[in-house]
């Protein structure tokens, strides 16, 4: 086995292969970052909707809650299949990358909304009341009072989630999107030693994921003031399904 690795290594670690792998890594990162940013924006909207109390918005609250629950309880792989075949039934012109991205955004929205909701709930209710008594509107309360206090609680699990997502995107290789995990399949198909190939792919993921998880751990320590430390505890170990390990898909 070692002989094979040593023998193949010069053919494998070529300039063009390196470029190819790096591009694939770029695609993995793009999927992750776009997915997380979109997830943050839509997730924020969902968390904001769920924090309303008006009776008129009850159907909307119900709708987004059902959305969140559903997408956190279906394997990512299954969502990928449904979205892919669903979209292709309507139109053939959409690229696989776009389809993968849509699926990723749908899932990350559900998870991010839970993280953001937990963060918003960590801000004492009285803060909201004080703002209300001073005639702050819904959006002003959210943007000036709730979010500036909640972000410390949102960031650490947010980063943990992003790390998860880098790995989850590996499943996208199954539908033929040329990201990092796909390069593994491809090189093995060309006859390279799986040891060498998958070792490299694993290293590639590690290089992307490790710094992020360190940053997340650093932020968690750094941002934990006496008050928010309690809240982080609540998010990471506290009641209900909002915790450090998102109920989700493993990739």
């Amino acid at each position, binding site marked *: *086995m070692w002989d*094979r690795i040593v023998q193949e290594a010069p053919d494998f670690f070529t300039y063009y292969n390196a470029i190819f792998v790096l591009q694939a890594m770029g695609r993995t990162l793009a999927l992750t970052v776009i997915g997380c940013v979109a997830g943050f924006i839509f997730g924020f909207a969902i968390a904001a909707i769920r924090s309303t109390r008006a009776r008129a918005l009850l159907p909307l609250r119900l709708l987004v*809650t059902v959305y969140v*629950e*559903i997408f956190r*309880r*279906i*394997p*990512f*792989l*299954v*969502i990928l*299949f*449904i979205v892919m*075949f*669903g979209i292709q*039934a*309507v139109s053939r012109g959409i690229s696989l990358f776009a389809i993968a991205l849509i699926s990723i955004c749908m899932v990350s929205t559900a998870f991010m909304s839970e993280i953001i909701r937990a963060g918003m709930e960590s801000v004492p209710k009285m803060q909201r009341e004080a703002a209300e008594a001073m005639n702050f509107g819904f959006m002003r309360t959210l943007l000036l009072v709730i979010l500036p206090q909640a972000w410390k609680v949102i960031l650490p699990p947010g980063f943990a989630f992003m*790390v998860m997502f*880098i*790995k*989850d995107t*590996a*499943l996208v*290789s*199954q539908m033929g999107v040329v990201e990092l*995990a796909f390069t*593994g*399949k491809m090189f*093995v198909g060309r006859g390279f*030693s*799986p*040891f060498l*190939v*998958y*070792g490299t*792919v*694993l290293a590639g*993921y*590690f290089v992307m*994921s*490790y710094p992020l*998880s360190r940053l997340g751990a650093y932020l968690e320590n750094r941002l934990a003031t006496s008050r928010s430390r309690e809240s982080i505890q609540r998010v*990471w*170990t*506290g*009641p*209900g*399904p909002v*915790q*450090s*390990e*998102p*109920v*989700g*898909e*493993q*990739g």
Partner: protein
Amino acid sequence: MNYTFQFGVVFAQLPYLLGGALLTLEVAFLSFWLGAVIGLFGALGKMYGGRVIRWLINAYVVFFTNTPALVQIFFLFYALPDAGILLTPMTAVVIGMTLNSGAYLTDILRAGILSVRREEIETAQVLGMSGPQMVRFVILPHIAKTIYAPLSNFFIWLVLGSSMAAIFGVEELTGRAINISTQNLRTIETFSVIAVIYIALTFIASIALALVGRWAFRVRARIF
């Protein structure tokens, strides 16, 4: 678009699919409990072990939590035969997921053990509890309470993650759905049905775990 949904052909295969769901639970169960054993030793080793042991455990946790389980299993399944180790798809998946959950559970269990406060142990000593009594009445209940929620979430995460096994040809829920859809060509319907099964499965798991938690550890667990 003129696509007409036909669920009939899928419903006819429901028993077959539910059989797959059973296998899904099996994979999740196996990797959860095997992972818990690794996690327990990992947590204890990380806290009380020597320098080398701590470093090794750390390396293990960091590696497995920072690389995709899918690629790890690819490695086990395709690369190990080169070294003369041949694994069936099922064993490769269970080993991969076990190693993964072992890494995560090391961290979760360690956080649980660390959460026991000195004052609690001192109080127990003041009350005149013996060593085993202390473990039974003070330390274990406390750890159980702290890690209960992350653990139950992690189990659900494993249920969903086990769908990966389909990629290696294991005929669990997702695998069987792929089998069916290649025959009846009703992919959207088939996968919608198993999506519902997954939702039901995880809900049942959530509720069951919440009940166990309430009964055994008096944890007020939320399902939503």
